[in-house]
C-alpha cells in the first residue's frame, strides 16, 4: 500500500511522512503507550515476538525479515529502521532519534489542517515511565498531553500512581476518561469516575468511543495501590455498551483499548458491532489494520514513536471504507512545534541537572523489547547480582524503555527511562529452587498461554545468574526445565534456597533501595559498560 510506494521514493522528509489523501468524513488520530517520553529517543523494536496457539506466525508476531516481506518494506529504508530490529545501530545513526511530543504535535496539527475535527484518542500508559513523570506524579504528562488536546483516553500504568492521585487528575481532565471495564470493586458496578463511552459528532457522523482499560491491572501491577477498582475483560458488558450506543444512534463505534493485540483480536471475534479497535499495551506497531470479522484493529506502537491516522467513510449509519497510515515520528525530519517544545522544557527544567547527570558510557546497544532478555535487562540483572550480592536476579518483562546506542553516555534520565515506577524497591530474599520454577512457569503461562484471555500482559521475566530451557508449546508446569545456576554450572536444586534479588514486586511492603540507585551504582563503578551477561535461555518453539 502506501508504504511500498513510499519506500521506493528517494525523498524522505516531513511532507513524505505526512502525505495522505484525505478520505471519507471522519479522521481518528491514535497515540498509545507513550510511557512519558516527552523527548526524542531511540527505540529498537523486538527481535523475538512469539505468537502462540492460533496466533503463531500471525501479525504482530513476526519480526525482522519476515516483517519486511509481509509489508513490502525494503531493507535499510526508513520504515525498516522504524519497524524492525535488524542493523539497528547503523540505521539509528543514519536516521536519528524518534518521537518527542513536540514532533507528535506537529503531525497532529498537520492532520488537523486536513480535517479540523479529527479525533485524538490516547490509549494509555501515558502518565508513566520517566523521572519527571515519577517525580511530578504524572503532572508533566498531563500538562503536555492537555496541550495536544486529546478527546478521550483509557488507562493502565496510570493506576500505579495510586487511586487517590488518579482520581485527582481524572477529575480535572478536559477530555473523557473512559473504561467500560473499570468497576467499583466493592459493589461490582461501573466505577463512577470513568465513563464507559463518549459520543462525538464529527463530519455529520455520530461516533461512540468506548474505553477498555488494561484488564489485568491487579495481576500485572500492585492491586493494593488501587483497591477500589476491579477490571477484567468483561466482554459481555462490552457487548451491552456497543448495543447501547448503537441503540442511541451511533453510526461509528470505536473501541479505545488497552487490552493488548491478541486479546483485542479475540474480543473482536466475540463482541459484535465494533468498527475500529485502537489497540494498545503490547506496543506493536503495524503498517496496516488487521481485520477480524468486520472489526479493523489498529496498532500504533509506543514511546511516542508513531501516530496512526485513520480516515473513515461513514454513510447511512455504516462504515463504508477505511484508509490508514502509521506515521513514524522521525525527530530529525519533523519540525518540532515550538510551543510544545517550550512546554516540555518547562516540565523538565526543575530536574534538568539530575536528568543530564552522566553516570557512565555504553559500549553496547542497550534495548529491552523482546519476549526474553534484552541487553538493558541483562545489565539490570548484573547490577542486582552484584549490588545486592545475590545468586539469581529477576527483572520484570515490561515492554517500555528506550534504547541506548553504543558510544552514548548513560545519564540518570536514561536509567529512569527503564526503571521509573512507584514500586521500585530492589528486594533481596531467599527462594527455593522449586519456588523459582513456579515463578518462571507462572510468568511463562501469562505470556504463552494459547488462549489470549489468559495472557495477562508482560514479556517473560528476565533472569540473571540462572539459565533455563523453555518449551513454549507445553502447558503450565511443564515449560521450564534445565534450570542451571550459572556461577557453579550446577542444576538448580528444588530443595535448596537461593539468594534472589529483584524489583517491581507487586507485594505491599517490599523493602530495598530503589532499582535506579542500584543500577546507577553498578554503572558508575563500571564507568563504561558493555552489555550485561546474557542469560542462556534455550527456547523451544511450537511446531
Amino acid at each position, binding site marked *: 500500500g502506501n508504504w511500498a510506494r513510499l519506500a521506493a521514493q528517494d525523498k524522505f522528509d516531513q511532507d513524505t511522512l505526512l502525505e495522505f489523501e484525505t478520505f471519507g468524513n471522519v479522521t481518528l488520530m491514535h497515540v498509545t503507550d507513550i510511557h512519558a517520553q516527552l523527548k526524542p529517543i531511540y527505540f529498537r523494536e523486538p527481535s523475538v515476538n512469539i505468537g502462540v496457539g492460533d496466533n503463531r506466525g500471525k501479525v504482530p508476531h513476526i519480526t525482522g525479515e519476515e516483517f519486511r516481506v509481509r509489508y513490502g518494506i525494503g531493507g535499510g529504508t526508513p520504515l525498516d529502521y522504524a519497524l524492525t530490529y535488524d542493523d539497528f545501530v547503523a540505521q539509528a545513526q543514519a536516521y536519528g532519534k524518534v518521537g518527542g511530543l513536540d514532533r507528535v504535535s506537529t503531525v497532529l496539527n498537520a492532520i488537523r489542517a486536513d480535517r479540523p475535527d479529527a479525533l485524538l484518542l490516547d490509549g494509555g500508559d501515558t502518565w508513566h515511565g520517566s523521572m519527571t513523570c515519577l517525580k511530578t506524579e504524572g503532572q508533566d504528562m498531563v500538562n503536555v498531553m492537555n496541550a495536544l488536546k486529546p478527546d478521550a483516553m483509557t488507562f493502565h500504568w496510570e493506576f500505579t500512581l495510586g487511586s487517590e492521585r488518579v482520581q485527582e487528575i481524572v477529575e480535572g481532565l478536559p477530555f473523557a476518561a473512559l473504561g467500560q471495564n473499570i468497576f467499583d470493586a466493592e459493589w461490582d458496578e461501573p466505577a463512577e469516575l470513568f465513563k464507559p463511552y463518549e459520543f462525538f459528532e464529527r463530519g455529520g457522523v455520530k461516533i461512540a468511543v468506548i474505553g477498555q482499560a488494561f484488564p489485568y491491572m491487579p495481576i*500485572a501491577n500492585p492491586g493494593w495501590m488501587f483497591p477500589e477498582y*476491579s477490571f477484567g475483560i468483561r466482554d459481555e458488558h462490552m457487548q451491552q455498551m456497543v448495543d447501547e450506543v448503537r441503540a442511541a444512534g451511533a453510526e461509528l463505534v470505536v473501541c479505545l483499548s488497552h487490552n493488548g493485540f491478541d486479546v483485542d483480536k479475540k474480543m473482536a471475534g466475540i463482541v459484535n458491532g465494533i468498527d475500529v479497535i485502537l489497540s494498545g499495551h503490547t506496543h506493536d506497531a503495524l503498517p496496516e489494520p488487521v481485520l477480524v470479522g468486520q472489526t479493523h484493529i489498529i496498532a500504533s506502537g509506543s514511546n511516542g514513536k508513531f501516530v496512526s491516522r485513520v480516515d473513515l467513510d461513514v454513510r447511512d449509519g455504516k462504515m463504508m471504507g477505511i484508509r490508514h497510515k502509521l506515521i513514524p515520528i522521525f525527530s530529525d525530519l519533523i519540525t518540532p512545534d515550538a510551543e510544545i517544545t517550550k512546554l516540555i522544557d518547562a516540565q523538565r527544567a526543575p530536574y534538568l541537572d539530575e536528568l543530564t547527570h552522566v553516570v557512565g558510557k555504553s559500549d553496547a546497544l542497550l534495548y529491552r523489547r523482546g519476549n526474553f532478555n534484552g541487553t538493558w535487562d541483562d545489565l539490570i540483572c548484573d547490577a542486582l547480582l552484584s549490588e545486592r550480592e545475590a545468586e539469581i536476579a529477576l527483572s*520484570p518483562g515490561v515492554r517500555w524503555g528506550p534504547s541506548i546506542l553504543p558510544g552514548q553516555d548513560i545519564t540518570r534520565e536514561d536509567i529512569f527511562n527503564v526503571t521509573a515506577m512507584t514500586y521500585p524497591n530492589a528486594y533481596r530474599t531467599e527462594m527455593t529452587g522449586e519456588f523459582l520454577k513456579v515463578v518462571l512457569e*507462572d510468568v511463562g503461562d501469562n505470556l504463552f498461554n494459547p488462549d489470549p*484471555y489468559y495472557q495477562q500482559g508482560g514479556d517473560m521475566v528476565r533472569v540473571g545468574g540462572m539459565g533455563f530451557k523453555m518449551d513454549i508449546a507445553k502447558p503450565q508446569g511443564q515449560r521450564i526445565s534445565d534450570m542451571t545456576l550459572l556461577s557453579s554450572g550446577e542444576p538448580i536444586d528444588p530443595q535448596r534456597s537461593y539468594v534472589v534479588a529483584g524489583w517491581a514486586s507487586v507485594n505491599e511492603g517490599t523493602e530495598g533501595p530503589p532499582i535506579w540507585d542500584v543500577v546507577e551504582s553498578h554503572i558508575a563503578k563500571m564507568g563504561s559498560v558493555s552489555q550485561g551477561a546474557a542469560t542462556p535461555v534455550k527456547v523451544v518453539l511450537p511446531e
Partner: protein
Amino acid sequence: GLGALALSVLPVGASAATVDELIAEFTGGAEMADTGVTLTAPEIAENGNTVPIEVSAENAAAIMVLATGNPTPPVGTFAFGPLAGARNASTRIRLAKSQEVIAIARLEDGTFARTSAEVKVTIGGCGG
C-alpha cells in the same frame, strides 16, 4: 511487576472431607446431569483472595460450590426460598491456587446437575 512472594492464600492444612465425599453427601450418591447448572468465574483471578463467581440453575432448590484445590474444598451452599426471584446468586470466594471450581445443583424434582470452571490464580506477571 513480579509478585513472587505470597503464593497461597490458605496454607495446606490437615486433609478434610474429600471432594467426592462432599458430593456424595450432597447428592446421596445420585447421578448428576452435566447440563442444567451454570457457574461463571473469571479465566484469571485478579486476586485469589476474592474471586467473583456466579451460580445459577433453573428450578434449583440449592446449589453447592466446592473449590477442589483448596485445603478444605467446601465454599458454600445457596438454598433458594419461595421468594427467590431467580435461582441465581453471586459471591466472592478464596482460591488458594489455580484449580477447578465445581457447582452442583439440587433441582426441585430431586435430580442433580453438575458443572465446573477452571480458574487461574496467578502470582503475578509484569505489565507492558
